[in-house]
């Protein structure tokens, strides 16, 4: 399809990007925390992708290339809004977050996501992650990109992807486990694989 667009069938670009509409929006939203701004950033990212399509190298995945454009667009907007924003992360530090230790809470049924306040708790916890961890978490867990693609999109090492993902997961567990425990009746049902 890329060849078709570059060959002059520009309308094909609409079909080319359709599978990535959600990913690009989600990436922008996870950085900007504002739906209208995320939508605008996503549109702008797709327009930039169209303009620069000729520069796409087929040795990288199109989705990774698109996500990198969306990230750059969202980061630029974030810097304009918060020029003082620094989010330096020490990937070499050995201090990992300490998880919440609640032995009476294991499982929350996914049906509870029908409840607005539960969705809001989950979104707030994601929003509260430091930016560098949030980017990795969204790519790995929400976008289901593999470690290599995540490292490529963010231009960081595979070791950093793994470290940031691990810390993000423990931070979310620490933040969400106590909140969800009080938001949802305790279930003592165990996972079938234990």
């Amino acid at each position, binding site marked *: 399809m890329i060849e078709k*667009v*570059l060959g*002059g069938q*520009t309308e094909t*670009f*609409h079909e080319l*990007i359709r599978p990535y*509409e*959600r990913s690009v*929006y*989600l990436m922008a*939203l996870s950085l900007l925390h504002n*739906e209208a701004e995320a*939508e605008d950033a996503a*549109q702008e990212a*797709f*327009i930039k992708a*169209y*303009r*620069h*399509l*000729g*520069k796409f190298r087929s040795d990288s995945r199109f989705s990774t290339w698109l996500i990198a454009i969306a990230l750059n667009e969202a980061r630029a907007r974030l810097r304009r809004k918060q020029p003082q924003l620094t989010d330096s992360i020490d990937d070499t530090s050995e201090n*990992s977050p*300490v*998880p*919440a*230790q*609640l*032995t*009476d*809470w*294991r*499982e*929350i049924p*996914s049906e509870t*996501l*029908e409840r607005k306040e539960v*969705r809001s708790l*989950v*979104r707030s*916890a*994601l929003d509260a992650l430091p930016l560098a961890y949030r980017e990795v*978490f969204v790519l790995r*867990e*929400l976008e*289901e990109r593999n470690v290599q693609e995540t490292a490529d999109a963010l231009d960081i090492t595979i070791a950093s992807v*793994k470290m940031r*993902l*691990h810390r993000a*997961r*423990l931070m*979310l*567990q620490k933040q*969400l*486990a106590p909140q*969800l425990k009080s938001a949802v009746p305790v279930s003592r049902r*165990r*996972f079938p694989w*234990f």
Partner: protein
Amino acid sequence: MVLNCRHVWDYISGYLDNTLDASTRAHVEEHLAHCEICSAILDSTRNILILTADDRVFELPLGYSERLHARLTEAMLNVPPPEKDTDP
């Protein structure tokens, strides 16, 4: 090798992603079998990952796709069509 709880927390992601070597995985499982705190941490972390990945957490705004393609159509009229970059 006997693992304490803090060691096990360091291995939680590797355990969930199944990237631990066989020996470490066996030691983690041995600890989990006897430690209610760590097995609850593992369960709750896994559960939270399932919840966060659910499409209902972040929903696309109504009309997002239509607005995107309308804006693209407009932009495509105003910019020259992309061409293959022949630079090495």
